[in-house]
C-alpha cells in the first residue's frame, strides 16, 4: 500500500450514534406496525369482555371488569356456533390440504419444465380467476344440487381449494424456482422417482411457500361467507354464517356476542399462523450447493 489506498479509520463514536438512532427508528416502526395491525383487533377482543352498554362508550374504558356473558350467550343462545366451527375446521383443513397438494404438484411442473404451452397456461391460471365468484355461482348452484353435493363439506372444500389453486401454484413455482436443479438430479441419480424427488427433496425445501399457501387458503376458507351461504344449509354450515346471523337486520346486531364470536374465530387462525411462522423463516436452502 504505497499511495492512494490507505485505510482511514472510521469515526467509531459517530457510528455508534448512528447505530443507536437506527435501533430507535426500527423500534418505532415496529410499534407503529403493531398499533396499525392490532388496534382494531384489540378493540374487538376487549369489547367482547365488556357489558353491552360499555362497548360504544367514549372515551372507551381501557380498564374495566371483564364479563363473560357474551361468551355464555354464544354457547347457550347461539347453539349453532360451536358445532359450525367444527364444520369450518373440516372445510378449512380439507381445502388447505387439497389446494396445497394440487399446487405443489403443478408448481413443481411449472418450475421445472418450460414450453410455450406452459407459459400460456400461466396466463390462463390467472385470467380464469378474474370473473367475480358471485357470477360463477349462477351455473354452479344447480349443478351442485343435481350432483346431490349441496350442504356437504366436499363442495366447499373443492370450491375453496379451486379458488386458491392458481395463486398457490404460482407461489410454489417461485419457491421451487429457488431450489437448485442439481438437487433434483442428485435425487434421480440416487434412484428417486419424480414423486419421491418432489416429496422427499423439493417439498421440504419449499416449506416457506407451502406455509404461505396454507395460511392463505386456511384463512380464506375459515372466514368465507358467500359460498357457504349458497351451498350449505345445515350439515355443512360454517361459523361465518352464524356470525352473520348475529349481525341481524331485524333486531339489530348483538355486538357483544358478535365480538365474542369473532374473538373465538380468531384463535385457531392465530395458532396456525404462529405454527406456520416456524417454517416461513426456516431458510432451509442454505448450504445446499457451492462452498
Amino acid at each position, binding site marked *: 500500500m504505497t499511495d492512494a489506498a490507505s485505510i482511514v479509520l472510521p469515526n467509531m463514536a459517530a457510528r455508534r450514534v448512528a447505530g443507536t438512532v437506527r435501533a430507535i427508528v426500527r423500534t418505532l416502526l415496529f410499534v407503529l*406496525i*403493531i398499533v*396499525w*395491525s*392490532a388496534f*382494531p*383487533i384489540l*378493540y374487538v377482543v376487549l369489547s367482547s369482555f365488556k357489558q353491552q352498554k360499555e362497548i*360504544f362508550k*367514549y*372515551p*372507551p374504558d381501557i380498564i374495566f371488569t371483564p364479563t363473560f356473558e357474551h361468551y355464555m350467550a354464544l354457547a347457550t343462545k347461539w347453539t349453532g356456533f360451536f358445532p359450525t366451527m367444527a364444520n369450518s375446521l373440516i372445510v378449512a383443513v380439507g381445502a388447505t390440504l387439497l389446494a396445497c*397438494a394440487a399446487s405443489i*404438484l*403443478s408448481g413443481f*411442473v*411449472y*418450475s*421445472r419444465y*418450460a414450453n410455450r404451452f406452459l407459459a*400460456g397456461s*400461466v396466463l390462463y*391460471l*390467472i385470467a380464469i380467476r*378474474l*370473473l*367475480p365468484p*358471485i*357470477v*360463477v355461482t*349462477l*351455473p*354452479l348452484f344447480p349443478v351442485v344440487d343435481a350432483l346431490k353435493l349441496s350442504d356437504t363439506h366436499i363442495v366447499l372444500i*373443492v370450491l375453496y381449494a*379451486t379458488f386458491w*389453486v*392458481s*395463486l398457490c*401454484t*404460482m407461489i410454489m413455482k417461485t*419457491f421451487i*424456482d*429457488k431450489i437448485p436443479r442439481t438437487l433434483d438430479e442428485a435425487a434421480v441419480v440416487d434412484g428417486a422417482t*419424480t414423486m419421491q424427488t418432489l416429496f422427499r427433496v423439493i417439498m421440504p425445501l419449499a416449506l416457506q411457500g407451502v406455509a404461505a399457501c396454507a395460511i*392463505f387458503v386456511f384463512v380464506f376458507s375459515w*372466514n368465507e*361467507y358467500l359460498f357457504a351461504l349458497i351451498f350449505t344449509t345445515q350439515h355443512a354450515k360454517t361459523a*361465518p354464517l352464524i*356470525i*352473520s346471523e348475529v349481525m341481524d337486520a331485524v333486531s339489530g346486531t348483538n355486538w357483544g356476542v*358478535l365480538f365474542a364470536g*369473532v374473538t373465538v374465530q*380468531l384463535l385457531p387462525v*392465530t395458532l396456525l*399462523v*404462529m405454527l406456520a411462522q*416456524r417454517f*416461513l*423463516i426456516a431458510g432451509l*436452502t442454505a448450504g445446499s450447493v457451492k462452498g
Partner: protein
Amino acid sequence: MRRLNPAAILMLVPTHLLLLVVIALPSIYVFWLSLNESTYGSDLTFVGLDNYVTVLTSSYFWRAALNTLIVVNAVVYIELLIAIGMAALFLGGVRYPKIMFAIVLMPYAISEVVGVLVWKIMLNSGSGVLARTIESLGFGMFNWSVSPPLALSVVTLISIWHHLPFTFLLIYAGMLAIPKSLYEAARIDGATPWQEFWRITLPLTIPAILISLIFRFVFAFRLFSEVWLLTAGGPARLTEVLAVYLYQSGFKYGEFGTASATGWLMVIGSLGVASIYLWAMHRRMLKGND
C-alpha cells in the same frame, strides 16, 4: 429445462381439473348467460349483445369503473410499498417473531365483513373512537360518509389494512428465500445496507412482487364488502365500485344477463390494469426463469 413428459402432465391434472370444472366451464356458461335475458326460474331469451350495450351505456357503470380504477390502483401500489418496507424491516431481524407475526397477520385473519364493521364503528362521525379523536384534535367533524372522495379514501384505507398481510407475507417469504451467501458476498464487496437492499433484496424478490401485484389486482378489482358495508355505494350511488354495481344492477333485481355481462366486462377491465405484470410474468415463464 426438461421436456414435458407424461408424469409431469399427470401432475398438472389436479390443478387444472379443479379450475376447469369449478371455474372454466361455468365461466363459459356465464358468457352464454350474458348474451341472454334471464332471471330466477325463467328460461333464457337470446338478446345478443343487448346486455353489454345496457351496461356500457349506463353512467353508473362508468362512474363505478372510474371509482374502481382509482381505488384499485391506490390500494395495490400503496399496499405494495408498505409491504416491501415492512418486509425489509422484518428481514433486519424481529424480536418475538411468533407473536409479531401473529399480530401482523391478524387483520387478514379476521373476516372481511367484521373488519370493515369495526373500522366503521371506530370511524362513525360523532361517536366512533377514531372519528372523535380526529375531531378532538381540531380537524373538525370527520364526516366521510357524505363525501365521495373521503369515503373512497376510507375504503382504500380499510382495504389496505385488511390485505396488507397478504402482500407482506408473499414478499417477506420471497425475501427470506434469498440465499444468505449473496448478502455475505455483497458485504465483502463493500455494499451498504441500502445498496444491499436495492441491488440484491429487491431484484431477487421480483418474482414474489409480480405475483402479489397480479393477485392483488385480481382481488382488489372485485372489492365489494368495504364499499357495501361503509356506504352501500351512496350517497346517491356516487361511491359505487364495479362489484357493487354488479350486485345492484344484476343480483338485486335478479337480472342475470346484466350481471354476467358486467362480470365479463370486469374480466376485461382487470386484464387491462394488470396487463403489464401479466406480460412480464409470461416473459419470465417463456425465458424459463432465472
